[in-house]
């Protein structure tokens, strides 16, 4: 009986990174009704992909990052495969550089997120322009990038708690 409960708990906690990322995708698409924000809603799921890529890449495998990114593309009506690509690459880069971040203070992680976030938005801009077949104005994307970077500490605060909770199980 206990073994079953343990396995369920284990399974549940293993699913946390994927579920959190998926939830952030859904929340990111809810119409918020704030003037002007609709155009520059930050893709907050990027924060989760980055975070779990550093701390638990084993629980957010490449295929999961790909699938969640694709889910975002399908729902958002944007270029199919765009976020699948971005999430996949961000997860891979963070998973390969994770040793650098472990044990470093928080601001290092945040600074690196600014670089990764900027790179992700640059990629998005170039691919989106190619996809639409026209020059896409970079303004909204830049604001989106800034918002995402600003939101990083808030969301990681939540995810740190979740990570500690699932390591205990």
């Amino acid at each position, binding site marked *: 009986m206990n073994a079953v409960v343990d396995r369920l708990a284990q399974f549940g906690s293993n699913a946390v990174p994927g579920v959190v990322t998926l939830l952030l995708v*859904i*929340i*990111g*698409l*809810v*119409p*918020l*009704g*704030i*003037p*002007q*924000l*609709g*155009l*520059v*809603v930050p*893709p907050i799921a990027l924060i989760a992909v980055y975070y779990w890529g550093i701390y638990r890449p084993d629980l957010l495998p*490449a*295929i999961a990052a*790909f699938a969640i*990114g*694709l*889910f*975002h*593309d*399908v*729902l*958002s*009506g*944007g*270029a*199919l*495969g*765009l976020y*699948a*690509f971005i999430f*996949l*690459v961000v997860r*891979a880069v963070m998973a390969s550089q994770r040793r650098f971040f472990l044990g470093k203070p928080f601001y290092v992680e945040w600074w690196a997120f600014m670089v990764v976030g900027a790179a992700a938005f640059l990629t998005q801009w170039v*691919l*989106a*322009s190619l*996809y*639409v077949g*026209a020059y*896409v*104005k970079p303004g*909204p*994307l830049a604001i*989106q990038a800034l918002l995402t970077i600003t939101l990083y500490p808030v969301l990681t605060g939540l995810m740190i708690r979740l990570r500690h909770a699932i390591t205990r199980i």
Partner: protein
Amino acid sequence: MRAPGGNVLRLAGPVRAVIQRFAFVLLIAAAFLLMLLGRFDNALVERTRLAVVDAVAPVMDVVSRPVAAANRAADAVGDLANLRSELATAREENRRLLQWQTVARRLEAENAAYRALLDVKTEAAPLFLSARVIADSGAPFVRTVLMNAGHRDGVRAGQAVMNQDGLVGRVAQVGQRSARILLLSDLNSRIPVINGASQQRGVLVGDNTDLPQLVFLPNQAQVSPGDPIVTSGHGGLFPPGLPIGVVGSVRDGIARVQPLVEWHRLEYVRVVRYRLPRLAPAGEEQPVAE
């Protein structure tokens, strides 16, 4: 003592790494393949996409409700604060509208009389269908929203979508219980319009900004700020005369239109189900263009 299968485990490490690397490359390739397929409107990709959106629509519907409720609550608080000034404005507006009502009634009667005299064919009255917006587009280079009504509710691709202010856009893709609306500010939006002041035709072209452009006007067209822009009804699926906006600015020969819709207040929308007065002989049911 070594655990059985130790050799296998020792081998498994590098093999796993190779598989993982291979999977990564494969997934990257898949992402680019999807981008290409999606770019060229592959039918299978579109169908799959609609099926997924359909499946998730109820979830988005539930998730978006508390946010919408909170927004309404915030609006209510704001309304309370502005109650007195709003009331004065509303009274003033009501007085003006009552005068207009008299004028409108007279014109209506006059119109009916002329119609009867000339035996004019009246146009099919459009049917409306209300739906809720359940998701914004999460990408800054597309202007689309999802609504919670689809094929089973009678929504078809190409139909006009309005809200209480004016035209919002048109139905772009239809699933069983959800549909995607292409907003009139999107890069791909083209709407045949007519300038209410000069009665000249044009096309309203979205360019991903809040102010779509008015193009293909006849030469020496008279456009000036403040001109009302309405749908012309050319092309069939839009009824003529739906309000869109007013000309906001005319600069370097480019007229931009300020839509009546407030984009951030897009919660409930109305789909206009409209058919052109039929050209085919009666009894031959014409399928609505999908």
